[in-house]
């Protein structure tokens, strides 16, 4: 008189089996399609057309495209990509749908301009994106900062960078360093402390984890460059004074040219080579360094965002 037991049993087993099957197939589909949804971005006639098609739900669609942009870059970055063709269209669509999504501009500012594998290598498009952001958010100093950042960091165009920083400093509630940076562009453009100031600003004024990690990596690299310069300078002075190269940092310390044992920002000891060069223990942990790598060093195909990667 109850519901048929046989049917219940078969249906239950089948249901669970299908559930498992569908999960497996979904993973398979992901593999087969990888990035297909994103490639459709190329088929969108224009960001404006997409906005019209969104029937007023731009905010939600902007969030979706923003998520896709982050996933796109993150996934490709971690698999050692050579180019990020879709990053620009994705960010352009995102900001077109929601012009006030500041973090999207920051992301573009940090990852569109630099050369691969650290970015899409499209500084001009990045600049266009920032200018678009500024037009839509003229009172937000972050965007002027980001614009100046691109000019400084990726294009080495210190005049335009100064100009951007100056514009930004005139905005109410602007970060106090914008005025300083504008001034530094003229004389201290190549100064390591200017760069350090920029990366610190970037690190402190964003919420996005990837941007922060990237900025932190740059700051560590700057520190390494500074350390290596100082240490190699000490080695040279030692050689001048004593007549031969020191065999270890202990020798430098004994000669009063060094205090303590020099460690890199991650806490590992620096190496002193037989020909007087200072090198990192594990250069792979420090993308962006210009000094402290052995000769003929090739950075890994898949760079690290974080030391733990």
């Amino acid at each position: 008189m109850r519901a048929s037991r046989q049917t219940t049993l078969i249906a239950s087993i089948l249901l669970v089996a299908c559930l498992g099957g569908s999960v497996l197939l979904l993973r398979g589909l992901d593999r087969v399609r990888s990035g297909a949804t994103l490639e459709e971005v190329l088929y969108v006639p224009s960001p404006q057309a997409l906005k019209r098609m969104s029937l007023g739900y731009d905010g939600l669609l902007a969030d979706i495209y923003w998520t896709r942009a982050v996933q796109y870059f993150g996934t490709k970055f971690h698999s050692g990509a050579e180019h990020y063709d879709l990053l620009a269209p994705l960010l352009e669509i995102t900001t077109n749908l929601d012009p006030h999504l500041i973090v999207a501009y920051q992301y573009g500012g940090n990852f569109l301009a630099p050369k691969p594998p650290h970015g899409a290598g499209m500084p001009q498009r990045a600049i266009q994106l920032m200018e678009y952001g500024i037009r839509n958010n003229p009172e937000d100093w972050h965007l002027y900062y980001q614009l100046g950042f691109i000019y400084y960091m990726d294009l080495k165009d210190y005049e335009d960078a100064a100009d951007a920083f100056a514009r930004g400093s005139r905005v109410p509630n602007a970060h106090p360093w914008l005025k300083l940076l504008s001034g530094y562009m003229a004389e201290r453009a190549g100064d390591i402390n200017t760069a350090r100031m920029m990366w610190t600003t970037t690190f402190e004024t964003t919420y996005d984890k990837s941007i922060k990690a990237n900025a932190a990596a740059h700051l560590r690299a700057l520190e390494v460059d500074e350390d290596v310069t100082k240490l190699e300078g000490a080695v040279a002075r030692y050689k001048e004074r004593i007549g031969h190269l020191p065999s270890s940092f202990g020798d430098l310390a004994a000669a009063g040219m060094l205090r303590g044992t020099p460690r890199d920002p991650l806490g590992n000891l620096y190496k002193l080579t037989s020909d007087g060069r200072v090198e990192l223990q594990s250069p792979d942990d420090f993308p962006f360094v210009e000094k402290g790598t052995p000769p003929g060093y090739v950075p890994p195909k898949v760079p690290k965002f974080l030391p733990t990667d």
Partner: protein
Amino acid sequence: MNSRIGLIASNTFREAVRDRVLYNLIAFALLMSGAAILVGQISIDIERLVVINLGLTAVSLFGIVIAIFIGIGLVSKEIERRTLYTVLSRPVRRWEFIAGKFMGLAGTLVVNTFFMAIGVFGALLYVSHHFQAPDRWLLVALYFIVLQFLIITSLALFFSSFSSPLMSAVFAFALFVIGTFAEDLRGFAGMASGVARWLATGAAYLVPNFSALNVISSVAHQQPVSGQLILYNTAYALIYTTMALCGAVLIFERRNLK
């Protein structure tokens, strides 16, 4: 057993036809003809694009609407109108009833899609005067759309087995929308943490993946569809549909028909 399922299926098909569901084909035909003629006047190059995009999107949307509107009533209407009493007092097993209803609606949708496909190809021929080799991928796109219909129908039937037509429509439509963004949901889940991450991941796997079944834009740009994708999608649609139907059977088996 099979003859009973077949009888129920053909009766369901007959009901849909007599309910004038197939009249939607007229609206569709008008839409396609109008679009084809209009587009033929605009610049060359994009008319094929527009016809394919518009045509396939219309096939998909019309069909989803039909699937939901008929699907939600498949069980609940019969219970409400008490037509079910005289059916279940016959040697018809409850699961056979569910299976038959599903086949009937699925069959209706396949027939509907078939006629619509003729419309799309007709419009395409009109604007570009001859078929090109990549046009065969249109058939794959249409096949994927039919797979979408199977999934939505089984979901509507599932909801219909225990909830009112209105709520069933809401749930089914919601799942359709979320399913279209299923891959993004998985993206969101990846960025979340803690309990939200588990919930979102669970939901992302449970929700039907319609984005994989939507190849309209790439087909419109004459991109081929990989055989692997066809295989995976077919298996996925069949398995998901079976899952939803099992759910419907389990619920319906136990239902007291007051």
